[in-house]
């Protein structure tokens, strides 16, 4: 895959050039590319003078980072306690079935990435699914299935 | 009063008593003799003459082995004046062995840790067992008078 990394220096330059900014820089890179390309990690490490191994360590330690390319649409199923006891597992099963992938995977056409996340803090409307940053609450299996624009 | 080794190769008869004394002094807990920290090197000077030289750590003031050690495993024992290698701090990087300009620190083939003279807590056994007086343990001033070390350096410098 050929990708344009010309925006990387600009993203990094937005932050204070200190290792303190590392996590936030990676978040911004992920925002832009939907994942963390190895090139981005290398450049970040060089710019901030942080060892590459530490950058890789951070990129894999925290949940929100992905080193694998993700789909165009990110579907997050909340598995917080409130959602769990209101049947989040059913919703997850349904979405997995519908997309034909397990949580954490991306469909072969790169349209959807399904992620199971711990609490998103919208517990009052459990169970919750977030599609591309938009919250959908008080779901049931059928409503959840309709969130995906595919048969 | 601080003492120093005073080595006189011309007196050495290569009996290796010093090596044995050292090896037994540094026996393992199980009673296995350790690797000797003193080494008698026998070199053919010419067709008719062999030179026997007991070689032992000089406890250099600015020791290369201690300087290069990345984990400070070599530390001075201020009581005995010995630069002592602490296995517990060692990460076996082999740098000290390579750094010693005289080859007086080696690897123990069994434990793979570097070994060097620790002056036997201030009472070197090799000296006690040397029958010919080739290696003696003299007060600093006396040893200094007889010392040939500066000449070695001078020699090395002109090389």
């Amino acid at each position, binding site marked *: 895959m050929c990708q344009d990394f010309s925006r990387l220096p600009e993203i990094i330059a937005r932050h204070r050039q200190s290792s303190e900014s590392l996590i936030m820089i990676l978040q911004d890179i992920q925002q832009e590319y939907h994942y963390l390309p190895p090139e981005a990690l290398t450049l970040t490490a060089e710019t901030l003078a942080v060892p590459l191994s530490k950058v890789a360590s951070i990129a894999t330690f925290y949940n929100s980072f992905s080193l694998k390319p993700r789909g165009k649409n990110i579907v997050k199923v909340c598995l917080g306690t409130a959602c769990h006891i209101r049947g989040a597992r059913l919703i997850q099963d349904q979405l997995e079935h519908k997309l034909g992938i397990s949580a954490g995977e991306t469909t072969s056409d790169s349209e959807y990435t399904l992620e199971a996340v711990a609490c998103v803090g919208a517990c009052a409307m459990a169970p919750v699914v977030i599609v591309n940053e938009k919250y959908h609450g008080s779901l049931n299996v059928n409503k959840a299935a309709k969130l995906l624009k595919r048969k | 009063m601080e003492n120093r080794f005073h080595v006189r190769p011309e007196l050495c008869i290569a009996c290796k008593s010093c090596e044995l004394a050292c090896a037994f002094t540094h026996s393992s807990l199980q009673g296995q003799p350790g690797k000797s920290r003193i080494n008698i090197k026998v070199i053919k000077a010419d067709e008719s003459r062999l030179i026997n030289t007991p070689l032992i750590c000089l406890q250099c003031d600015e020791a290369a082995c201690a300087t290069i050690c990345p984990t400070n495993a070599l530390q001075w024992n201020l009581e005995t004046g010995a630069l002592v290698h602490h296995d517990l701090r060692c990460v076996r990087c082999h*740098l000290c062995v390579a750094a010693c300009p005289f080859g007086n620190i080696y690897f123990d083939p069994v434990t793979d840790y570097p070994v060097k003279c620790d002056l036997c807590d201030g009472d070197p056994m090799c000296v006690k067992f040397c029958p010919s007086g080739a290696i003696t343990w003299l007060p600093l001033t006396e040893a200094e008078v007889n010392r040939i070390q500066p000449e070695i350096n001078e020699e090395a410098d002109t090389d």
Partner: protein
Amino acid sequence: MVTLTINGKQIKAPAGEMLLETIRRQDIEIPALCHHAAVEPFGACRLCTVEITRQSWDGWKNYVTSCLFPVEEGLIVQTHSSEVTRIRCTILDLLLASSPNSRVIQDLASEYGILASSYVVDAAGDDCILCGLCTRVCSELGMNAIATVERGRLKKVDTPFSEPSASCIGCTICAQVCPTGHIRFEERGLKRKIWYKEFKLIACSECGRSLKLTPEMKQYFSERQQLPEDYLEQCADCKQKQTVDRFNRIIDRSEEVI
């Protein structure tokens, strides 16, 4: 100096010293797999856990890892009380389940009477117990070639992207400090392979024997410590020969003078 009681015996120890060192100085055996004097204490393996209490605690006890706990005046320490042994046994039992093939773990566990793990054994489990010694010494040296990736049970030690790391100098100390021998390296003649990377080893300029040093190590350390480069070129044996040779010449000269 502080005074404390270890297993009923009154002991003096320098203030600021970690309890583990004090205990070990008493010739009391306590296992500690993540501990190495060359790096800061870490507290990951928890095997050095001991029981502490004080006269004033009224029977209340606490369990602390001795590698990280500085000695305190009036502390009463038990290194092998039944609860401590139970904690240690459980940890060894757990380690034996996750690293069933490790000799070190097997031996240590059998010392505590555990011959087989009572938990679900991960047959594919490797010998790494994530003690962090390798990454810590690597970082201490300033290389940072390896670090942990992922977290929890997926955590492992690796180079970035599992590729040869530009910062690795092939010193193998990660393997040297590894308590279970999980990190391996290959060394044949003047070649060394570690962490997906191949190194040439420096040969003794006299006899050609391996110095067990890579040129990268030589460059890094001689620069860092400002040592003459020729200090790192010959093996101990050849250097001794040279020393004797010099002796020889000096003696010759002095004889001439006489």
